[in-house]
C-alpha cells in the first residue's frame, strides 16, 4: 500500500561532496516490498518547490521501521532537503513502483552495476540478494572520488570495482570499461544509473538483467503520463510502460532506451 507520511529524520549526514544520506523512520517502511522501490519526497510545506522529488530507497529495515535515502543536493528541492536536521520531519509518499525481483539464487552470481546517484538502491538490493543466497559483485561508476560513497559498505558484501571518469578513484573510465576489461562473469545483472549508461548496458551486456530507469515525474503513481517509455519491440507504437508505476525496474530489453 502506498502511504503518505510525515517521517521522522533519524540522521542526516554528508557522505561525499553534495551527497547526503538521510535516514527516516516511520510506518511507511512496513509497506516496502522490494529493493529498488522509491519514494516521492515533498520538500518544505509550501509551493517552492512545488513538486515532489523521486528518490530511491537505498536500504530499509522493517523491524526498526527505518529506511535510508542517498541523494545528491543539486537543484532547488534537494538543496532545501539537505537543510532538514535530525528530529525534523519529511513528507514522504511511498513506497512507489516495483523494485527488483529478488528470487532465491543459491550460488548464482549477481553483477550489480551502478552509476552516480543510481548507486544507492543497489546497496539494499545487494544485501537482499546475499540474504537470498546469491554471490554479489559490484561495479560502481562515479564522476570522481570526491562524489563517491559507500565503497566500503559494498566491499563488505562482495567484490567491488570502482570506475571514475577522471581516474581519481579505481579505474579511469566508465562501468562498461571495467566490465569488459575484467571480463566479469555473472548469471544475472542489475543496473541503475543515468539512461545513457543503461542504454550501453542493454546494448552490450549479454544475459538476463534488470535495469532501473529514471524519468522526470509528475504524480509518481501512474496517473499523469509524464514518465512513459516506448517498448523496445515497438519503439514507434502506442504501447508504453510508466517508469513510476510499472517500473522503475524493468527486465533488460523491454524498454526502448
Amino acid at each position, binding site marked *: 500500500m502506498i502511504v503518505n507520511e510525515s517521517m521522522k529524520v533519524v540522521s542526516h549526514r554528508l557522505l561525499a561532496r553534495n551527497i547526503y544520506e538521510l535516514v527516516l523512520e516511520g510506518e511507511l517502511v512496513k509497506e516496502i516490498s522490494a529493493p529498488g522501490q522509491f519514494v516521492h519526497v515533498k520538500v518544505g510545506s509550501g509551493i517552492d518547490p512545488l513538486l515532489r522529488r523521486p528518490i530511491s530507497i537505498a536500504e530499509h529495515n522493517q523491524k526498526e521501521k527505518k529506511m535510508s535515502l542517498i541523494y545528491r543536493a543539486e537543484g532547488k528541492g534537494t538543496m532545501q532537503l539537505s537543510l532538514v536536521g535530525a528530529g525534523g520531519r519529511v513528507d514522504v509518499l511511498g513506497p512507489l513502483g516495483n523494485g527488483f525481483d529478488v528470487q532465491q539464487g543459491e550460488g548464482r552470481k549477481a553483477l550489480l552495476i551502478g552509476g552516480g546517484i543510481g548507486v544507492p538502491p543497489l546497496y539494499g538490493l545487494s544485501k537482499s540478494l546475499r540474504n537470498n543466497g546469491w554471490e554479489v559483485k559490484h561495479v560502481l561508476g562515479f564522476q570522481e572520488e570526491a562524489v563517491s560513497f559507500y565503497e566500503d559498505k559494498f566491499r563488505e558484501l562482495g567484490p567491488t570495482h570502482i570506475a571514475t571518469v577522471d581516474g581519481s578513484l579505481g579505474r579511469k573510465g566508465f562501468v562498461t570499461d571495467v566490465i569488459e576489461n575484467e571480463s566479469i562473469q555473472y548469471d544475472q545483472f542489475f543496473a541503475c544509473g543515468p539512461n545513457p549508461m543503461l542504454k550501453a548496458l542493454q546494448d552490450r551486456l549479454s544475459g538476463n538483467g534488470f535495469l532501473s530507469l529514471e524519468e*522526470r515525474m509528475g504524480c509518481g503513481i501512474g496517473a*499523469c*503520463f509524464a514518465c512513459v517509455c*516506448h517498448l523496445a519491440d515497438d519503439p514507434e507504437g502506442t504501447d508504453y510502460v510508466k517508469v513510476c508505476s510499472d517500473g522503475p525496474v524493468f527486465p533488460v530489453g523491454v524498454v526502448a532506451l
Partner: protein
Amino acid sequence: MTRLQIELPGLSLKNPIMPASGCFGFGREYSQFYDLSELGAIMIKATTEHPRFGNPTPRVAETNAGMLNAIGLQNPGLVSVMEKELPWLSQFDVPIIANVAGSQMEDYVHVAREISKVPNVHALELNISCPNVKTGGIAFGTIPEVAMELTRKVKAVSEVPLYVKLSPNVSNIVEMAKAVELGGADGLTMINTLLGMRLDLKTGRPILANKTGGLSGPAIKPVAIRMIYEVSQAVDLPIIGMGGVESAEDVIEYFHAGASAVAVGTANFVDPFICKKIIHELPALLDELNVDHISQLTGRSWRKHEQAVYRP
C-alpha cells in the same frame, strides 16, 4: 453535506470538487487513496478516437509555483476508454465528465457521439485548448468562429450536456466564451494551461522534448480568477473553474469569481488526498464565512448586492 450539493446541466454533484482532466488518469491510481465516490465528479483524461502515445519525454518541468507539461494527449483511445476505463469507473457513485479531444472536427464529433452514450458519462468537456497538440488545436481554441462551429457540431451529436474548456492563451476570453455559448454549450470549464517554456541553464535547450508546454499550478491562479470574473458576468453558462487550486480557500475564491464548481489539477500530484481533504474542509470554512450553501458565493466578487439565493 447538502450545503455543498450543486446542480449543473447533466451533473448532480454531491459537492463541487472534482479532479481536472489529465491530472487523475482514469481514476485507478487515486482509488488506492480514497473512495472515488466521495468526489463531486471526475474529469477523465482526454480521449481521442485512436490510441495516442503523446510526446517524447521529458514531458514535465517544474517552474516557479507551477509546472509545465507536454503530455500530448496520451490515451488508450475511444474503444479502450469505453470498454475498460468507464465500466471500471461505474463501480463508483460519481458522475464522469469525459474530456474529448481530436485534431479535426470529425474526430471530436465521433468521440463525442460514442462516449456520450456510456451511462456513467454525465457530461462532455470539449478540449479545444490543449496547447500541446499541433494540428488544428490552436485554431479551435483561439478563433471564436471555429470554436462556435465545433461546439455546434459536437452539441448536435452529444447525448449529454456539453461543457467547453477554454484556453487562456487568447486576447479576449469573453469573446471566446460568447462564441461557444452561441454554439450551444451548456457550460464552460476554464482555464486550461498557459503556454510556457523552460530552458536548461547549461545546454540552453528546452527541458521539454516538445519544447513548449502548458503551465499549470498556483502560478496561474490570478489569471484564471480574472478570466472567470470576466466571463461569468458576460455569459449565462455555469463555469467549472480551475487553475492552481490547492485548498478550500482557493475553492471559495473561484466561487467568488463566478465559478459554480471547481476542478483540482496539479495539486493531486503534490498531495494525492487533496480533493478529499478540500471536500472535508469546506463545511467548516463555510461556517467561518457565515454561509449556508456554497452556491451562494458564486459571483460574489461582482454581484451588486448580496442577493439571497438558492436554499436546497
